Each structure stands twice: as structure tokens, then as C-alpha cells.
């Protein structure tokens, strides 16, 4: 995981070219396979695509887009979801019923499909993707947080804050939120992975990021067009890298979940 | 002898070290006998029961000793061979009737499973037998209740079903692990009476594991008292109850409230059960014992005869102690 982050942060300093900088790309370098395959040559370690872009450089830049979308998506979805979950759980009653029915309806549809349909109405673009991710992602947060709040609410120390007359908002932020934080962290870890995958899939279908800022999914999509001509490296490597990133995140998520799950202790 | 346990050792290997849950335990159960095993929770009495059943799970392991049942050495049998004995020759009654029955099968199916596994009855005969069994454990309208699920029954009724399952294959020995602990007091008495009657009627033996001396005194022919994985006192039920000789047994009996004695305070055993990872060097009970002497801290005591025949205790001091004792 750390390596993935480091690559995304500092990778651009070491790549042979900036894939956004058209002047750095020359068509004469196109269709080069990875260097260990016949016909391949350094410095294009993983080969080049149909326009002569270095695959490795593209992956490094693409991973930045993917990671940023993953993290920001979690922050947006988490922010909305946690807030709604806290409100639903703490105040109960009609607010709770409304929020949770909405969540139920949405949960009966797969997130991927909702994101896909939303993006079919929106323009391509990073901010629209984030909106779509927030719309599909808030439900799980809201549900988890609400469930935990219902438990925490009954605890004496929360009841006590009412006795001393603390305003609701302070009780929520200072006394309830810290208690549900572990679950939020565990969930967020898993969600980052999910979001990166969702974004990649959307981009692959041409419904994600614009072509000017290719994410890893976009790179795969580009590569798919030339897969049948035998240029496997253009699409396989970016996909492999997505898998590595998400795999790392999921392992971390599994570990955190097992650590914090009292039922398996 | 129906069951003979010799020097049984069952250890649990954990990250923090080895727990000697059952450490060198030997006893016998005769045909038709009810043996009570008494002790606090964690003293190894349940583990003894599970060791006999061959149901010790990771990280536990039977580390040594012998279990002879009807002339067969159970520890040498494979899991498949044990499946022929479990349920058929030795069956078990569990502590919590609310969780021991599988919630997704009807009680009829759960009794019948025993008959399918261990008898050659035809489906119709099996059904008849199920009804008989339910009737014998006192479930009203047994025909109508065969197709009910466990959640339709109360705790006491479920325990009756479990007893019916345990009896289904006519076992020679029943291991009952705290069979009444989870029940209401009024129902406890009913269930105990029922169990005793059924066991006597079928001339089968029983190993009754409990922390409740009152239960044991009503049921058992002989009693074993366990403490920290070892037997500390053994003898005929009346001898042990009326004339407890080990300080631990005395403490246990002393802590039962008595109606006819006017005492303002209950007696208690002071101190707590020692950490199973760091048992005392000498007698396991020494840190809590009122009669503790120097030798108790250094040397593990051996069995010796108490007052009456067949009444054994594991204590250095004792003997004279039963007459009131002189506190040291």
C-alpha cells in the first residue's frame, strides 16, 4: 500500500515522459512491446501504446487520478453518510424512517448500476464521478453508523450528557462520533477499494473521467481497442496495477475488520 | 466397570502458554451408577466430559491417559469409529437448551436423526419411536409437536427434547453437562427427577457435571470434586456431602445457605481461582486454604483415605480437619 502511495506521489519525477505533454510523445515510438519481449526497448519498460505513450508513465499518472477519486469519493460519501446516519440513529422517529426507507430502496439496486445510470445522464468528468460515487456510497455509511449509534445512545455516558444539558450537536460530535469511528475507518478502507474499481469500470465503459485525464480504467479501455491486434501490454498492465492497489486496500480492510470485530474474539 | 478413565490429561495450547485443563484425572463409572462431578466453572469438569466424547477442539488436545469404555480404548479409535459410539453408546446432554437444538430443523427431525444414524428402524417405526420418546420425557401431545421447531418450545421443554434425543439410541452412558443450570429453579427439580427416573428405568449410567452441590446430592451415587483440573475429593455421595474432608469441599458446602441454621453471613471461600497459566507450585488450593501449612506451598499432595472406605482426598492437612479443624 505504502509503495502504491509513494509511486503516485513521487512517481512522476522518475518517469521517462509526461503522458499529458503531447510534445514529449513521438509516434515513432508507438507499438513497442515491454522491453523483455522481442522488439521492445528501454526506456519503455512496459512498452508503448498506439500513440507512442510509455505505458509505465501512463500508469503512474493514471494511478494518481484513480487514487484521488477513491479518496475524495470516500470523503464525500462518508461525510454525507455519517451525518445522515448520526441524525437517523440519534433522533429516530420520522427522520430516521425517511432516511432508512430511502436507503432500503437504494440498497435493493446494485451500486454499480446506479453509478452507471447516473453517469449516463451526467457529462464525463472527475467532479461528476465524485457526485455519482457519493450518491451510491452514502448508504452503507448511514446504515453502519445508525446501527452503532442506536447502541451507543443507550449508554450511560451519553444519557449523562443530556442530564448536564449539552446541546445535541455537541453530544453527537463529542460523545457519539468517537465511538463509531472504528467502524467508519474499517468501512472507508474497503470503500476506497470499491470506489477505485467502480471508477475504473465506469471509465472503461467511457462514462468516467475525460480522455484528457486518463485514469487506470481509461487506460485499459484504450488498450482494449488494440487488444485484438495483439498489443496486450497496453491494457493488461494498467489493469494489473488496479488489482494490486485494490488488493492491498482490501487486505488492509480485512485486517482492520478482524482486529475490531468483537464477535470473532 | 462401564467407564474407566485413567490418568487423563487434556491440555490447551494457547499463545500465552499451556493450560492443563484436565491434569491426571482418574475415575470409574459402574453400570447403572450416577457419578456427580462438581467444581467451579473452569475447573476442567466439562473438558473431562468432552474428552470422553472425543470432542476436544483446537487448541485443546488429549495429551495422555486412557479412557476405557466397555473394554474399548476410546482414545485409539478413529473419528469414524467414534461416530459409532457417540450418540449410540455414550450420549450427551448440554447446558443450554436454548442453543443446543438446531433452530432450522423440527424436533422430530432432530430426534429421528439419532435413530437414522444408530438404528435400523424403518421410517414408520422411527416416527413411532420419536413419539414414544417425547411422551416418556413428559411432552404433552407428542404426535402434534413432532413437526414443531425448537423456537416453539420453552427452555424446560427444549431440555426435555434434548433428553429424549440423548436417550433415543438407548445409550449405556449419558454425559450430562450442567443440564439444569440454564433453567428456572422450579423446572430444574422436574428435569432432575425425570432424568433420574429415566436413567434408573433403563439401567444406564450417567456422568453428571455440575457446579451445584444440591443437584449432585440429590442425584448422584458417588461424587468427584474437581479443582483446577484435578480431583481433590472422591467418595460416596453421602460421605462427601455429610462429611466433607477436603477444605475446598468444605468451603463449597459451607457456602450453601441453609434454611434451618440461623447465620447472619454465608461462609465463603476467600481468594479467587488461580490463573490457569500460573498454578501454584504446591497444592493448587493452597493460596485459598484456611488450613494451609508450609508443606502445602511446596509439595503437590497425593490421594489419601479419609474417614470412610472409598472416600479419598488430595490434601496434606485434612483428616482431622473434618471434625472442625484447627486453623493455622
Amino acid at each position, binding site marked *: 500500500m505504502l509503495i502504491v502511495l509513494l509511486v503516485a506521489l513521487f512517481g512522476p519525477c522518475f518517469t521517462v515522459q509526461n503522458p499529458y505533454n503531447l510534445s514529449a510523445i513521438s509516434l515513432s515510438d508507438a507499438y513497442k512491446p515491454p522491453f523483455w519481449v522481442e522488439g521492445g526497448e528501454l526506456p519503455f519498460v512496459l512498452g508503448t501504446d498506439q500513440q507512442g505513450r510509455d505505458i509505465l508513465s501512463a500508469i503512474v499518472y493514471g494511478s494518481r487520478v484513480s487514487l484521488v477519486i477513491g479518496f475524495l469519493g470516500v470523503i464525500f460519501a462518508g461525510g454525507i453518510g455519517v451525518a445522515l446516519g448520526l441524525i437517523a440513529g440519534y433522533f429516530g422517529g420520522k427522520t430516521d424512517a425517511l432516511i432508512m426507507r430511502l436507503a432500503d*430502496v437504494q*440498497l*435493493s*439496486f*446494485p451500486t*454499480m*448500476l446506479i453509478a*452507471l445510470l447516473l453517469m*449516463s*445522464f*451526467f457529462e464525463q468528468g472527475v467532479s461528476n464521478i465524485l457526485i455519482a460515487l457519493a450518491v451510491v456510497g452514502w448508504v452503507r455509511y448511514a446504515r453502519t453508523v445508525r446501527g452503532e449509534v442506536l447502541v451507543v445512545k443507550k449508554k450511560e455516558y451519553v444519557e449523562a450528557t443530556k442530564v448536564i444539558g449539552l446541546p445535541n450537536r455537541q453530544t453527537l460530535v463529542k460523545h457519539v462520533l468517537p465511538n463509531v469511528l472504528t467502524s467508519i475507518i474499517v468501512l472507508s478502507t474497503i470503500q476506497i*477499494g470499491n470506489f477505485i*474499481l467502480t471508477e*475504473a*469500470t465506469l471509465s*472503461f*465503459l467511457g462514462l468516467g473521467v475525460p480522455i484528457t485525464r486518463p485514469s487506470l*480504467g481509461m487506460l*485499459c*479501455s484504450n*488498450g*482494449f481497442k488494440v*487488444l*485484438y491486434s495483439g498489443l*496486450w501490454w497496453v*491494457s*493488461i498492465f494498467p*489493469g494489473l496495477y*488496479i*488489482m494490486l492497489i*485494490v*488488493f492491498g*486496500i*482490501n*487486505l488492509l480492510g480485512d485486517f482492520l475488520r478482524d482486529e475490531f470485530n468483537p*464477535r470473532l474474539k | 466397570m462401564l467407564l474407566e478413565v485413567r490418568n487423563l490429561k487434556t491440555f490447551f495450547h494457547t499463545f500465552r502458554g499451556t493450560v492443563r485443563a484436565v491434569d491426571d484425572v482418574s475415575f470409574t463409572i459402574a453400570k447403572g451408577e450416577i457419578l456427580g462431578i462438581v467444581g467451579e466453572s473452569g475447573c476442567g469438569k466439562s473438558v473431562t466430559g468432552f474428552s470422553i*466424547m472425543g*470432542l476436544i477442539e*483446537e487448541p485443546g488436545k488429549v495429551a495422555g491417559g486412557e479412557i476405557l469404555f466397555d473394554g474399548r480404548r476410546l482414545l485409539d479409535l478413529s473419528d*469414524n469409529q467414534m461416530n*459409532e459410539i*457417540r*450418540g*449410540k453408546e455414550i*450420549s*450427551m446432554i*448440554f*447446558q*443450554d437448551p436454548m*442453543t*443446543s437444538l*438446531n*433452530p*432450522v430443523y423440527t424436533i422430530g427431525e432432530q430426534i429421528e*436423526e*439419532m435413530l437414522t*444414524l*444408530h438404528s435400523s428402524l424403518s421410517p414408520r417405526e422411527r416416527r413411532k419411536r420419536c413419539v414414544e420418546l417425547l411422551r416418556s420425557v413428559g411432552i404433552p401431545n407428542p404426535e402434534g409437536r413432532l413437526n414443531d*421447531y425448537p*423456537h416453539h418450545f420453552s427452555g424446560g421443554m427444549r431440555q426435555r427434547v434434548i433428553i429424549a434425543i440423548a436417550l433415543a439410541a438407548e445409550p449405556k452412558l449419558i454425559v450430562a453437562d450442567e443440564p439444569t443450570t440454564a433453567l428456572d429453579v422450579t423446572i430444574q427439580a422436574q428435569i432432575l427427577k425425570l432424568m433420574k427416573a429415566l436413567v434408573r428405568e433403563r439401567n444406564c449410567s450417567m456422568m453428571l457435571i455440575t457446579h451445584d452441590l444440591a443437584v449432585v446430592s440429590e442425584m448422584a451415587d458417588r461424587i468427584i470434586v474437581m479443582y483446577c483440573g484435578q480431583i481433590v475429593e472422591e467418595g460416596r455421595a453421602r460421605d462427601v456431602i455429610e462429611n466433607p474432608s477436603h477444605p475446598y469441599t468444605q468451603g463449597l458446602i459451607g457456602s450453601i445457605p441453609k434454611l434451618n441454621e440461623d447465620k447472619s453471613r454465608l461462609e465463603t471461600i476467600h481468594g479467587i481461582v488461580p490463573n490457569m497459566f500460573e498454578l501454584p507450585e504446591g497444592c493448587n488450593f493452597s493460596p485459598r486454604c484456611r488450613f494451609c501449612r508450609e508443606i502445602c506451598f511446596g509439595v503437590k499432595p497425593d490421594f489419601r483415605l479419609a474417614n470412610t472406605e472409598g472416600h479419598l482426598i488430595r490434601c496434606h492437612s485434612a483428616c482431622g480437619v473434618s471434625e472442625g479443624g484447627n486453623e493455622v
Partner: protein
Amino acid sequence: MFKYLVTRIGQLVAVLFIVSMLVFFMTSVVGDPLQLLVRQNASNEERQAAMEYLGLDKPLYVQYGKFIVSTLSGDFGKSYMYHTSALRLIAERFPATMEIVIVAMLLSGFIAIPLGVYAGAYPKRMLSKTVMTLSVTGISLPSFWVGMVLIFVFGLHFSVLPVSGRGQVGSLLGIQTSFATLDGWKHLLLPSITLALSNMATILRLTRAGMRETMKQDFIKFARAKGVRNRKVLFGHALKNTLIPVVTVFGLQLGTLIAFTTITETIFAWPGMGKLLIDAINAGDRPIISAYIIFVAFMFVFLNFIVDLLYTLIDPRIDLS
């Protein structure tokens, strides 16, 4: 039971209402269908005529009313691309999609559940740990990438399996389906595996988690004490208790699979609903998109209903009313 049915149908109506509102406003607000119908340099009269033809000149609520009425009668209008009824197009493509979904579902059920049972019953064993690592890989794999790798390996490198299209269809029980011909099966294999992979991982993980909790229960020990054989304890006593959450997810996963068919079908050029949707989105073909959404919404409510019914079969403690 009756009360349950009524609430279910109420839910269905509510869901469809919300969905239809969203669909309608999304399609009305975003995107301009005129571009498709009218020439680039069309005159204003031509545009006007086209708008009237589509009913776009009326106020929104009238349009919505018309939309609801026609939706209720199953008429989503004609596809801009194909000039036939949108619903009929979807209905035509539906069997092809169901084929890969069913095969994927069977694959994941028969492989993932036994593995999950094993990994849950013996979490410490080597094989369980391997299975778990593979399952993490499974949920980390982008499904389009799996599809590409399969195409490359089996289709291009070894050339053993076809990678595009649906192949020959034969007639089975009166339905035209790929199940009836060998060629159909060959075409079916790779898309189904692609679709099944992440689904398998999810179901496996869920089964395992459930088994781990069930195996700690008293009734498992009691079953062992009855002399029940190990295999029967795992698959008879433990699995049936674990199945309840698995069935929910199986139902939900079926929905997810249908969503993911869009990707699989795009990659393998499989002529199903998913590919139709993507084509429609790319072409801005509104009737198809709306018809698809409503169709899928309907299907999901129906699926949830089936899952509820299955619950009562598995768990006697659940009473629908």
C-alpha cells in the same frame, strides 16, 4: 401472508414511482434527443416539428403524465436508434443476458459455497488460507480486466474459445437459447466466467464468515455428540443456518450480476440487455434507457420478493406476516 403481499406491492409501487420520477427528470433535463432525429443544419420548422412529434413542446408535468401513462401500458416509445418499441428490444435481448447470468450464478454457487464452508470450518488450514487470499484477489479484480485477459489467453493466444458474439442458438423447450448448441456453450463460457469471478469471491467470503460464527454454536457440538458425520455436520447442520445471509446476498448479487453484464457484454460483444444499454447511453437513446431502468427496477423488486420467500423456507423462525 396477504398483509405481506399488500405491503410488498405497496413497496413496488413506491419504488417504481421514485424511479420513474428520477428517470423522467434526468432524461428531460439532461441530453437533447433532437440531435439524433434532426439534421445538423435543420431549419427551425423542422426542429419544431420534431419536438411536437416527441411531445417536447408541452410543459414538463404534462410530459411526465404522458410518460407515466405510457409506461403503465408498457410503452416507452420507439427507440431513436432502431425505430422499434424500446420494451420489445429489451425483451428480445433479455434471454441472452439471462443465459450468462444463470451460468455465472451456478458457477459461483457450486464452487464458492463449498469452498466457503470449508474455509469457515477450518480457518487455520493451509487450503483455507489459500482460498481466502484468492478471494481477496477476486474482489480486487476489475471484471473488465478479467475479460480482457481471458480474451487474450483463450481467444488470441491459444485460439481455443470464441471471444465475441453469442454463437449459434438452438431451440430448447421452445425458447431460442445458446444452451441448446455446443457452439452456444463455447461462446457462453468466457463471458460467464468473467461475470462469475468477483461474485464467487463475495459469496465465498460471506459463506465463510457465516460458517465461522455458526461453527461456534452449541448445536454444532451437540450434533457431533450425536455421532453425526463431519460432512453432514458441515453441510447439513451448519450450512443451513449460515444460508440465510447468503441467500440475501445471492439475491442482491443477482442484481449486481445484471449490472455487470453491461461490462461483460461490452467486452465480449454479447447481444444482451447490458450492451443495449451502453449503446443506448452512448447514442442518447432515451426510450431504451428509461425502459431499461424501469424493467430492472421491476425485476429487483421481484427478486427481493423471491428472496423473502426463500427465507421462510430456510428459516422457520421467520414469519412473513
